[in-house]
């Protein structure tokens, strides 16, 4: 665990050309402690993150925690409290049978919880069955361009997805995210402490987090209110009125293929019931008008606690122009997004290449 975290942190420090001693405070995030079986691992990991003698904050909002970790790090700078903050998140799922934890004991994994809402979406929107496989192919093709993607399937095509085994109806094996170990780190600075590197910073234009109760009647898992509100606030902060026009790409949390059309609607990129048409028209493909998950996304690596932070980091890399082979051309503004729990936690940020 310390090694995994330190690999991410030392790369972020190297990218920013900073030392451990430059960090004023550390924000740490991961999903349920049961994944690694170490209760409150921040107690023993704090010094591995260079946190000794510094303020350290633990975030926890299940699968969305990485994005909360990023946003909270930014808040510490925005508040004027600190000048340089390290936000770092990880998950090491290889150590135990995470499907038992995520499947609520039923061994089916998280898909068991989400498959029912996916069927509701399909039956309600009338989306054709090939939409899920289309998303799976698109994200895995993107993953081939990303050196940090875990799941690389050369030659992936829709036939391969449609012929993969049915795991949790209507989800086939290749429409599900893998089990991953991983970490991510982002360094935030105030304007006066921007590192003087050749690589430009990303500027935060807006951010928002929202939650809602997991269990009460009248809550929608298909188009959760908290997700809609979260997006609306982030757009308002960034001065965005037409997100599809004003953003150039997005990294959204899609652990199962069908979440892409569902979240396109939830985030206001499409009208309700119309998100699947954006997928069908290749608008969200790498060379489409609005690329979604150019990194390969969560479908290509889902170290749960880190995955939200990595969505935020990938959005930042796109506006910095440092995404390498999976760089989308001319990105001025991008979204990083994550959701967690029983579709009940949401975190979104919008970053830009220029100071807002």
């Amino acid at each position, binding site marked *: 665990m310390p090694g995994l975290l330190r690999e991410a942190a030392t790369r972020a420090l190297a990218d920013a050309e900073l030392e451990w001693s430059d960090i004023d405070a550390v924000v740490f995030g991961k999903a349920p402690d049961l994944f690694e*079986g170490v209760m409150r691992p921040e107690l023993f990991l704090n010094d591995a993150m260079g946190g000794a003698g510094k303020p350290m904050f633990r975030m926890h909002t299940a699968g969305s925690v990485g994005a909360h970790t990023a946003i909270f790090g930014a808040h510490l700078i925005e508040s004027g409290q600190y000048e340089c903050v390290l936000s770092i998140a990880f998950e090491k799922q290889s150590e135990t*049978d995470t*499907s*038992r934890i995520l*499947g*609520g*004991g*039923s*061994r*089916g*994994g998280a*898909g*068991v*919880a989400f*498959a*029912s*809402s996916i*069927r*509701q979406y399909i*039956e*309600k929107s009338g989306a054709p069955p090939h939409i899920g496989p289309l998303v799976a192919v698109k994200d895995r093709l993107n993953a081939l361009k990303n050196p940090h993607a875990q799941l690389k399937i050369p030659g992936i095509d829709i036939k391969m997805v449609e012929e993969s*085994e*049915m*795991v*949790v*109806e*209507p*989800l086939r*094996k290749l429409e*599900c995210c893998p*089990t991953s170990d991983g970490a991510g780190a982002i360094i935030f600075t105030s304007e006066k402490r921007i590192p003087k590197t050749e690589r430009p910073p990303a500027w935060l234009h807006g951010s928002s987090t929202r939650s809602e*109760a997991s*269990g*009460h*009647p*009248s809550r*929608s898992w*298909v188009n959760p*209110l908290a997700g809609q509100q979260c997006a609306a606030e982030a757009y308002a902060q960034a001065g965005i009125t037409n997100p599809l026009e004003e953003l150039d790409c997005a990294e959204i949390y899609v652990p199962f293929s069908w979440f892409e059309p569902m979240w396109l609607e939830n985030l206001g990129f499409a009208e309700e019931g119309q998100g699947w048409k954006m997928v069908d028209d290749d608008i969200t493909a790498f060379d489409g008008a609005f690329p979604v998950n150019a990194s390969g996304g969560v479908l290509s690596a889902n170290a749960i606690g880190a995955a939200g932070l990595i969505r935020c980091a990938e959005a930042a890399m796109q506006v910095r122009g440092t995404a390498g082979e999976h760089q989308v051309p001319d990105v001025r503004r991008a979204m990083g997004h994550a959701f967690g729990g029983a579709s009940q936690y949401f975190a979104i940020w919008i970053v830009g290449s220029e100071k807002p």
Partner: protein
Amino acid sequence: MSDDVKVLNSVVSLDYERPPTRAARRYTEAVGEKRLIAHRCPECERLYTPPKGYCPVCVVLTTDEHEIEVSPEGVLVSYTVTNPDKLHQQGGKTSARGDVMLDGTRITLMGELDGVEAADVHTGMRMRAVWVELEDGRLPSSGGWGAVGIKGWEPTGEPDASREEVQELLKKAGES
């Protein structure tokens, strides 16, 4: 070197004492009589089963006086068929799980579907609860998501709700 120790095997095992709340005790007693009870929030009228003892939306407490009996039958509004052995887990058999919306409520409860082949499961089916047996007056551990005290759901054999009726139920459930 190849014979280096590279992994550590460990088992994390903890015992928890879980004293039941009054609402949980009454719920358990009702399950023993094959009855399903709920609390109705005095402010928003949402129903909760098992009773939470509060409404998280209105943030008000609920007690015995808000207890009502609800039907343990309803309509299958969504489902999935899981094949855990096809993923990376060891073991686990093919089974169907579904969401049943209880009659006269906006409550959906998840559970295993019994008495129907996975291939024959479809939305709109009328289902009834299959109750668990209490052990020494206690509910056995549920071992997964699903309604506490309800082992699963089985078809009643009554005619299906139509596709339109299912969509109407889902729409009603989504209204805040």
